[in-house]
């Protein structure tokens, strides 16, 4: 079965730096990969989706890369701010076009 690993449970960085989070998966390459943000006491919020034929995708200060050879996605937040502090989840399709499987998440703390 598909497994997802986000290799850092916690990441602490200074304001203004770039945060880089890693997501690795083990089995079949999905058609797309997603990143979500989760704040304490709240449900996950969708951030970005990247398809298997896309190497990179950007949205404002966010950038996602997808390397199907390495079976890895990197999630970058540039010019990080304390408001970016949250848990970031990587997700893959569980079955085509339906539910998702999630990594455990990386909790990012940005200090001022």
């Amino acid at each position: 079965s598909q497994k997802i690993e986000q290799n850092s449970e916690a990441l602490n960085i200074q304001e203004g730096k770039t945060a880089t989070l890693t997501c690795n998966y083990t089995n079949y390459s999905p058609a797309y990969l997603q990143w979500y943000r989760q704040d304490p006491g709240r449900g996950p919020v969708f951030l970005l989706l990247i398809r298997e034929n896309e190497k990179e995708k950007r949205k404002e200060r966010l950038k996602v890369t997808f390397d199907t050879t390495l079976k890895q996605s990197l999630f970058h937040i540039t010019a990080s701010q304390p408001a970016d502090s949250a848990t970031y989840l990587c997700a893959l399709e569980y079955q085509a076009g339906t539910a998702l499987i999630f990594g455990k998440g990386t909790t990012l703390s940005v200090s001022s």
Partner: protein
Amino acid sequence: SAVISQKPSRDICQRGTSLTIQCQVDSQVTMMFWYRQQPGQSLTLIATANQGSEATYESGFVIDKFPISRPNLTFSTLTVSNMSPEDSSIYLCSVLPSGSYNEQFFGPGTRLTVL
């Protein structure tokens, strides 16, 4: 997009009792899911709530323990039956709106504590 509400937001229950969690969406959606998030863990899919038919359960989850109703395209309930402390978790519903390329929208979750 979709706006999702869940009731209750949290509850503390006694062992052996049951709790029904409601999920309401502000628009009609075809796909609706229930997830569990145990402390320090990621989200685990419990089942897909199908409108007009029985829910589709994932391995490790059974209908007797987690009965689900989906009477229409905007509403679903998940019941956690005969609860034990191991059921203490956050339960979340999510939807996949029509036209969405599988980005899901989540409710705020129901935090359940079983004593």
